[in-house]
Every structure is written in C-alpha cells, then in structure tokens.
C-alpha cells in the first residue's frame, strides 16, 4: 500500500507538471496580458506594449518562463499577479479555504439528503414516494444553478432578511451557498443512489442479512449501500473535484471569494501567474482526490486489488 501511494504520488506530480505546462502554454496562445492591462488606455503604442511585456516578463521564450514558474513553486514563491502585483500566494491563501469549506459543506449537505432519499426511492420503486423523489430531483437538474441561488437570495435575504445575500461573513453566510450547491449535487446523487441500490437490493446476501433479523436500516445502509459504493464514490470524487475547481457561477452569485472565481478572472485577464499557480494547486488537489478514490475502492470492496 505504501509503495502504491508513493508511486501514485510521483505520478500525480508528473501529471500536475503536464497540466501546468498545458495550461501555461494554452493561455499564452489566447491573448496578451499587456493588451488586457492597457484595455482602457486610449493611445497605446507598440513600444508601450513591449515595455509592459518586458516588465511582466512575458517577452521571453515560453520554456524559460515555465521553468521560472516551476522554480518559484519549489520555493513556494508563487509570483505576483499581473493585475496590480498582488502576491499570488496571498490570493490562493485567501481563496483556497473558502473553496474547501464550501465544497465540504455542499458535499455534506448533498450526501445527507441524497442517500436517504435515493434509498427510499429504490426501496419503494415505482411507488408514489419514488415518483415524487424522482421528479423533485429533476427540478434540481434542469434549472441552472444560478436560478436556484438567486431564488434563495430573494426569499431568505430580501423578503425575510434572514441570511446575508452574499459574501463570506460569519457562519450564516455559509448556509445559502452550501445549500444551493448541495441541492444541485443532490439531484444527481439521489438518482445515482437509487439506481445502484436497485441493482444490489435483489442480491442473495441482502436476503441473508434480512434473515438475520437485521433492521431494514442496517440491511440498506450497511449491507446494500456498501455494495453499491463504487459508482457512488467515483461520482462523489468527480463532484468534489468539480467543486474544488469552483462553480464559478455560484461563487459569483454569492460573491464567494473562491478558487473558481480566481481562475476564471485570471483567464479573463490573461493573468498568467495567478492562473498557473491556481491550476497547479487545483490539479494537485483533484489528482489527490482521484488517488483517494482509488484507495477507497480497495477499502470498500476487498475484491478490488489496489495495485
């Protein structure tokens, strides 16, 4: 196991390097930061631009810039934003926790809702409860996330004035973003739990578990759930990765200073240092999540050999 993890860590670092290389290269294909910086300026000459490019260091060969970025990473020097020269490390330090916290709560909300609902639906397959749960989960699927977010804001902040409409100020402000995200994730998760449950519910060992006199809850949540955990865990891992990358729209609606917005704005402004560092951090985390998922496979299902 230890060897496996070390091996995968090395692969992760390698993959991260490739991601950052791709990202750095791609972003340079799509626009010039000097032009973005001088967007509001009237008379800008080629000489002005060249000057700014030099100051930003983007006139040098790509690989030189990339290696400099890597060198910075090794020494935990993430560089400075093109936009105003803020330290990128500082930006990430500000954004990463907000993203992690939001991701964590959203996942938690979603898991807490979707597993019981999904199982209930599966157990009462094709009965009224099932239909209701299924239709409700569809509502979550088919309306865009911002719609739900704005609706919540209208109700809870403007009409009832219970929760702050945006920003990350105090524990109350966590509620709406995590609930919004949670509900949106729930829509799929409920359905996923339902289908995977349907496949295991008829297994013989479920009947045996019942024959032991176990409560229905134990039968479902212990014996059945664990047996359909593989697709669930895979998907939750994917979702968590997605959340780390940030759901830009939700972050924007709730003015949530997260990684998604950071990356999004950096792309928009062609702010290479911010983008590269953000992606580096994110890709490392996403790859680690995937690694964790692979390890969990082996833990929940002993038949899967992790190596």
């Amino acid at each position, binding site marked *: *196991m*230890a*060897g*496996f993890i070390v091996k995968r860590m090395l692969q992760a670092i390698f993959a991260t390097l490739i991601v950052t290389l791709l990202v750095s290269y791609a972003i340079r294909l799509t626009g010039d930061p000097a032009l973005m910086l001088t967007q509001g300026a009237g008379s800008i000459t080629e000489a002005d631009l060249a000057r700014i490019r030099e100051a930003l260091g983007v006139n040098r060969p790509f690989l030189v810039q990339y290696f400099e970025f890597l060198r910075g990473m090794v020494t935990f020097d993430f560089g400075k934003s093109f936009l105003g020269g803020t330290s990128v490390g500082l930006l990430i330090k500000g954004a990463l926790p907000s993203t992690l916290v939001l991701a964590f709560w959203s996942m938690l909300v979603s898991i807490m809702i979707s597993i019981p609902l999904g199982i209930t639906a599966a157990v009462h397959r094709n009965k009224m409860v099932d239909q209701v749960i299924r239709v409700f989960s569809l509502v979550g699927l088919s309306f865009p996330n911002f719609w739900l977010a704005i609706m919540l804001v209208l109700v809870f902040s403007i009409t009832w004035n219970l929760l702050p409409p945006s920003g990350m100020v105090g524990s109350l402000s966590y509620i709406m973003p995590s609930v919004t995200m949670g509900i949106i994730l729930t829509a799929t998760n409920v359905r996923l739990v339902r289908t995977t449950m349907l496949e295991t519910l*008829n*297994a*013989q*060992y479920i*009947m*045996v*578990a*019942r*024959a*032991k*006199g*176990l*409560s*229905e809850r*134990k039968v479902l949540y212990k*014996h059945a759930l*664990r*047996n359909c*955990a593989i697709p669930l865990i895979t998907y939750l891992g994917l979702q968590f990765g997605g959340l780390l990358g940030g759901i830009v729209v939700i972050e924007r609606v709730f003015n949530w200073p997260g990684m998604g917005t950071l990356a999004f704005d950096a792309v928009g402004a062609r702010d290479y240092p911010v983008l590269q560092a953000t992606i580096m951090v994110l890709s490392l985390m996403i790859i680690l999540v995937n690694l964790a998922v692979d390890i969990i496979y082996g833990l*929940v*299902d*002993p*038949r899967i050999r992790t*190596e």
Partner: protein
Amino acid sequence: MKESSSDASSLIRVENLTVAFGAEKVVEDLSFSVRSGQTLAIVGESGSGKSVTSLSILRLADISGAHYLGGRILFESTKGEQDLLALSQQEMRAIRGKEIAMIFQEPMTSLNPVFTIGDQIAEVLQLHEGMARKEALAEGVKLLKMVRLADAESIIGRYPHQLSGGMRQRVMIAMALACRPKLLIADEPTTALDVTIQAQILAILRDLKDSLDMGIIFITHDMGVVAEMADDVVVMRKGHKVEEQPVEAIFTNPQHLYTQTLLSAVPKLGAMNGEDFPKRLPVSVYDEAGAHTEGELRVQNTANYEAAPLVRVEDLVVRFNVKKNFLGRPTHRVHAVEEISLDIYPGETLALVGESGSGKSTIGRTIQQLQESQAGNITFNGKRFADMGRGEKRALRQKIQYIFQDPYASLDPRKTVGFSIAEPIRTHGILHDQELIEKRVSELLDRVGLSASHGRRYPHEFSGGQRQRICIARALASDPELIIADEALSALDVSVQAQIINLFMDLQEERGLSYLFISHDMAVVEQISHRVAVLYLGQIVEFGSRRQVFENPTHSYTQNLLAAVPIADPHQRIMMAINEADIPSPIRAVGNEPARLSHREVAPGHLVANQ
C-alpha cells in the same frame, strides 16, 4: 417412533401453504409441522419448492416477489403462537435470526462480499444478544471453531472470496447457529462439505438440537444424511407434498411411487465392490406416466491409458497471500496447492476428493487458466501452457470446460440462461446459424432435464439445482475434451443426479471425454471415476484406481473419509462423536514451508503418502 401429524405442541405448523411467482404456483397446499427437538427432513425433486417454502417461513419470499395465495404458518414464538404470514416485516425481524435461523443454499452468494467474515457473524450476536463487538467477535471465533474451521482467528478477518466453498458454507452454519435459534432451517447445509466435516457438522447439529431442544427443518438431497439426521421426512414434488412419514418408514416402506423411484436412485457406497471400472446404471424415472427405468447397464471402460495423457499436471504450486505488512510484503500465505502432479487420460474420469479447503477447486481453476500458479507445469495434449500462444490458450478454452462450484455466481445476472448456454457455441464458432444455435440450446436444456422455455429466464428465477444444471448444459455446449466438474452434482436430487451421471458417461462413451470430477459424494465418486486422487492440505495423500482407493484405502485420511460417509439407512447411523482436536491449517508464515509428503506405491498405480 413419534407421530408425525400436526399436534398442538408443535413449534411450527405450516398449514395449506400456497406460494406463487406471478401466475405460477411453486408451492401448493403444503402442510407439515415440526416440534421442538424434532428434525424434519424435506427431500424432493430439484425445483419442487423446498427453498421457497423455507423462505416463506421467514417471510422473505414475498420480498423477492412471491405471493402467498393461502395458508397459515403458525409459529410458537416467545410471544405465543403467531401466524407468520400475518405478521408485518417489522414484527418478523424480532423472530428472524433469533428464533428462526436459516442456512442458505448457496454459500457463495449468501455472504456479503464486502464485509469480513467476522463482521457478518458478529452482527447477529450484537443484534440479538446485545453483545459488544469485541465480545461478539470472540464468540464468532468460537463458532467458527465449532464448525471445524482451521485458523478461526484469521478467518474472522478475511473476506468471503478468499474462502473455499465448504469454508463459506461452514461460515453460514456458524452464523445461523450463533443465537441458538428455536427453529433452524437448513437448506442443503452440507453440499459443499467433505464427508468427514459433514459428519462433524451433523453431529454438532444433533447435539445442539438435543441440548437446546431446537427444531430443525433439514432440506437435502443426500438420502444418507436424511437417514442420519431426520426424525420425519416430507417428500416434495412439483410444489406438492407427496408423502410424509417417519424416517424409518420412508426407507423401509415408501408409499408414493415418486419416493420409491427416488430411493432406488440413491447411489450406495460399496455398491461397486469388486468392479474394475465405473458403471453406467439404469435409472428409474418418475413422471406423469408413472415410474419406469431408463437406459442400460454398461461398463464404462473408456479410459485410454495407452495414449499420452490429455492433461499432465506436474509439481503444481499455488499460494495466496492473506496477510501483508505495511510495505505490502506478504507475511502469511495459504498453501492451497503444494507440488501436486497428476495426469488425466483421454476418456478417463479422474476424481478429486478431499477435505474442504484442500485445494481441489484451485487445481481445477489453474488448469482452466483462471488462476496463476507459483510453480509447476501443466501440459495439454503434450504442449505446455507456458509454450502456448494466446490463440492456442484461447482455443484450449473450448477443449476444457469448467463447471463452477457455485452456479449462481457464475451466471451473468443480466443475461438469459439461453444466452449463457449459447455463449460457448458462438464463441468458438461451433454453429453459426441462429436457428441451429437455438435448437442446440434447447437440446442441451432438455438433456439436463429442463425445458426449452427455461432458456428465456434469468438466473435468479431458478432453484439451486436448476441453476446447476444450466451450468452443466453450458459446459457441454462447446464439445469439450475435458470437463472440470467442481461439485457439479451436489445440488441435484438423486434422481436428476443419476440422469446427469448417465449423461456424462454417455458422452464419455461417445466422444472419449475426460472429466476432472471434484466431489464430496463418495458414492457418486465410486460409481463414476476411473481413478481417484485424495487431497489433504494441498497435497495428494492417496492416488490410485477407483477400486484400489475404495476397496483398499491405505492412508488414514482416506479411511476416515470412507468411514464418515452416511448410509441411507436409518438403522445404520454412524453417530460420530464431536471431534475436539485441533484443525490443521494451510496458512503459514512466509518462510515456514510445509513438509512435502513422500509417497510409496502399495500396488501398481496405487500411491500412498508416508505418514
């Protein structure tokens, strides 16, 4: 002996039970009763509704889609007499596992693959006995030891797929006995066990029955076991009870024609004394037209020892890592197969018998290329596996077919059984025309005693024995040269079993087929095999012709084995004592290799390990 009719003091009374799946009634108007301390055996045709009846008692049949069309099941629970059919699932829960426990028929699919054995046993104890987990696990170890599992402490932490069929079955037994139920339903609890362990288990059951005054419903095909265990016997056929009698009366004076045919089909150990070769025997069949005998008697002298062996296994070693240290290095291994060598000749039936967990399935799986070996050679038709290309290896899979020990697990749940049977035909391009393939499939179904329309059904819609026959049909489909039959007949009622045996023998006669026949049923082995290998802890302890091994068992294990075979006569009960001795284990620390047995030849071709 005791009167068998339903009286007021009975523990459970099934009255006029009728159960249906969809429109098909699989149990009809069934009545019987069991008192405390009584063992009622239910025997009968495969698919006659025995398992469905047990599941109905636990009220699990309705969860899997059955309907109770009528009847009552009156159970004398701690709360007084209750009609189980009238209880809610909620109320049933207090009874299940605690007051009525069940040993399920197919141990492979009955254990939850993702939990350790310990978890699954401890769970019942924690639930019904209010034990703490640690305490429950300790009790679990005791239970596992009771069912004669070696290394109980280690097995507690292992997963079902790491156990052999018989080991799993014993885990199921331990689980069912955990709470000392008032009523035990045992659905073919010993099919995967070798006779010595079977005798032990039966002794334990008898012991518990007496000490706890437990009622037992014992479902089995093994008439020897019936004679050994039962007080009364219910005989079922096509969902109906055809006869109910005390056990002596059933054997001495069977009333119904079906019972009579059934009994006449029971293979008897020693029936072949003095014979050099296996024999194809006529089989009595009971159907709508009544009872009649089919087929001729024929000496099965098909083995061709002049030819080169079809399969040659040399010094085969297979080990499994079961414990690893932090760095992933194995520390303990199961020595499943240790330097085993054997040959299988064209037209020969080689039987592999031996203790549960002694590596029989592993040998079969290695020959079938489903399992990597650590050392040794396997040669097919003179060519070593190691020297074969991919194509050749694949082609081999037409020539060698494997019938898995657990038929349910080996059928794709999403495919009709017709598809599964047709698969080898399609795979190896034996037939191309869709019509012809279907014709062949229904022919095969017919030969194993099922009807063509069964082809459209899915595996979960069959009884245990029916599934086993489907797997046999699948193995026959590709015209193989060697069939590895791993407990292929264990779930079949004796009458069907006899028919399948004859089918095997006919095919051998017609096409010179070879069999590697893995079985616990010594009587069947005696009847059909040319040579027998006796395995113990991964090594061969005795090897010789059928006659040599059965008439002159030399190794003490072989002798024990034969002595433990139950006899289908209630007056000749063996009544084994419960063995308290330590059970030898195939698990060893790395570096601690088992000693290799040396063999001596007591007669030409009769090898016996030195003790």
